[in-house]
């Protein structure tokens, strides 16, 4: 089982510098917040999905569609109940509250899909080197990239341990909530011990290879921002600026909603 979302494709999005993709991701986190109207949010969603189509990464939606659906449903219902507006719709729900709920749900979905596209087009090594190129200390980026690389291994270990314990009679599904929680101990202890006991050997291996011996580290993976990166960033900044201008001109808001 590989929980990673990365898709090994050869698209122009994959070839962008990781820093460009990080800036685009931050921008996509900001763009949905410009508007409050769900119809405008739908337009932003369409844009994100189109970008995902160009990056050939929409296939990963199959893995997270249930989460997205539940976020849409729960968020819309929550704000429809908690919020209030001027126009009654049905029972105690007002149209403005429903629209606000939809808008908030779409904001969350847009940011999650943007994150999915980023992870689908950026390898773990690129994430690490992108962080370093942005000025994040190498040791921190190393810890992040190492953790990313180890997760599939530990997941497999955890599943194996789970199967082994179940074959010895471990039952995770019966009993009250406290019992069911305690039943997870035979899974957690072996996973922890199996992983952490390699710390000293891991540390010695790193230091024997000069880890942290000096500044000015070189990297096997070379990245550089080129013309395509600049074009994409300029285009996105123009999009964001245009959206803000549209909002300031009075479009994309939601009148009449209150908490």
């Amino acid at each position, binding site marked *: *089982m590989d*929980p*990673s*979302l990365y898709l090994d494709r050869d698209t122009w999005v994959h070839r962008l510098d990781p820093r460009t993709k990080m800036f685009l991701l931050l921008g996509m*986190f900001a763009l949905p*917040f410009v508007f409050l109207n769900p119809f405008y949010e739908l337009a932003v969603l369409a844009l994100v999905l189109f970008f995902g189509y160009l990056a050939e990464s929409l296939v990963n939606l199959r*893995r*997270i569609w*249930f989460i*997205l659906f*539940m*976020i849409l449903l*729960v968020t819309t219902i*929550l*704000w429809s109940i908690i919020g209030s507006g001027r126009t009654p719709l049905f029972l105690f729900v007002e149209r403005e509250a429903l629209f606000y709920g939809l808008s*908030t749900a779409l*904001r*969350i979905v847009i*940011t*999650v899909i943007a*994150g999915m596209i980023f*992870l689908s087009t950026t390898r773990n090594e690129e994430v690490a080197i992108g962080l370093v190129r942005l000025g994040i*200390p190498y*040791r*921190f980026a190393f*810890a*992040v990239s*190492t*953790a*990313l690389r*180890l*997760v*599939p291994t*530990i*997941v497999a270990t*955890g599943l194996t341990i*789970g199967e082994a314990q179940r074959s010895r009679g471990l039952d995770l599904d019966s009993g009250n*909530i*406290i019992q*069911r*929680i*305690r039943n*997870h*101990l035979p*899974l*957690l202890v072996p*996973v*922890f*011990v199996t992983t*952490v*006991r*390699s*710390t*000293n050997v*891991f*540390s010695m291996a*790193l*230091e024997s290879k000069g880890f*942290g011996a000096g500044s000015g580290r070189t990297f096997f993976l070379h990245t550089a921002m080129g013309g395509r990166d600049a074009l994409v960033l300029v285009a996105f900044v123009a999009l964001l600026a245009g959206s803000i201008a549209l909002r300031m001109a009075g479009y994309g808001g939601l009148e009449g909603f209150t*908490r």
Partner: protein
Amino acid sequence: MKDVFTMWRHTQLVVLVALSAAIYAAVLIPFQGFTIVPGYISIRPANVFPVVFGLLFGPAGAWGAAIGNLIGDFFGTLSLGSVGGFVGNFFLALLPYKMWSAYFRSDENIETNVNSGKKLGVYIAVVVVASVVCAVIISWWVALLGFIPFQVTLPLIVFNNAIMAGVLGPVLLLALYPRVKRWGLLWTEIMEPEEVSASSSRLRGIGNVLVWVGGIGGAVVGLILSLTGASPMGASLGLALIPFLIVIVVGAFMLGGRDQVEVAQEMIAGEGEESEA
């Protein structure tokens, strides 16, 4: 709080950050536990790890919990809300080890192995306050973004973190502490005293109180504002809770931690003399 930065000098602690993060993320994924709010909150066994990591690995555990939660989001729900999860989980692991020694006299054993009634009581206390602080931070952030109302997320996150850490944590620490100590991986054995902030017993006591006030106060005020509709959400609630977040951070700064490292170093020196004799 200089230990959260000086710890990066030690390769063992860097590795522990990576391993802690990987364990947390890896256990989050297959063991989903029980879903409370689909897509948002589940009771997950992995939620015991931040507190355990913090008590065993100190600042490395705090960074590991933060990065691990972020990586867990990498496998499905990475969004702007993940920023709140990063900071919240950082404090969920940071506060237990910072606050631990504030509850003990200088002549008491302050190892974090939860093998006595008093230590169990202290453990429960730090779990409760750390869970509340984590919940206040995350709920404040997602309310500021307008994603989910504060009054919905706060109790769920407190319950989620506290029940897992409270039920599983003591047993986990009893099982893991001797092993981690034997491997020489306790943060108090790796770090040097001068790398950790010093704090007098009085300052630790004040810092402890400030964290409680900031956490519980932030939770209560946030709930009142959001339940009564006095604060329409977003920026207003966000501004109202900032003083409590500042109090929490100030309290954390006052808690120090050097005393724990010095005690551990003395124990190691004592054990070394005994073995030589």
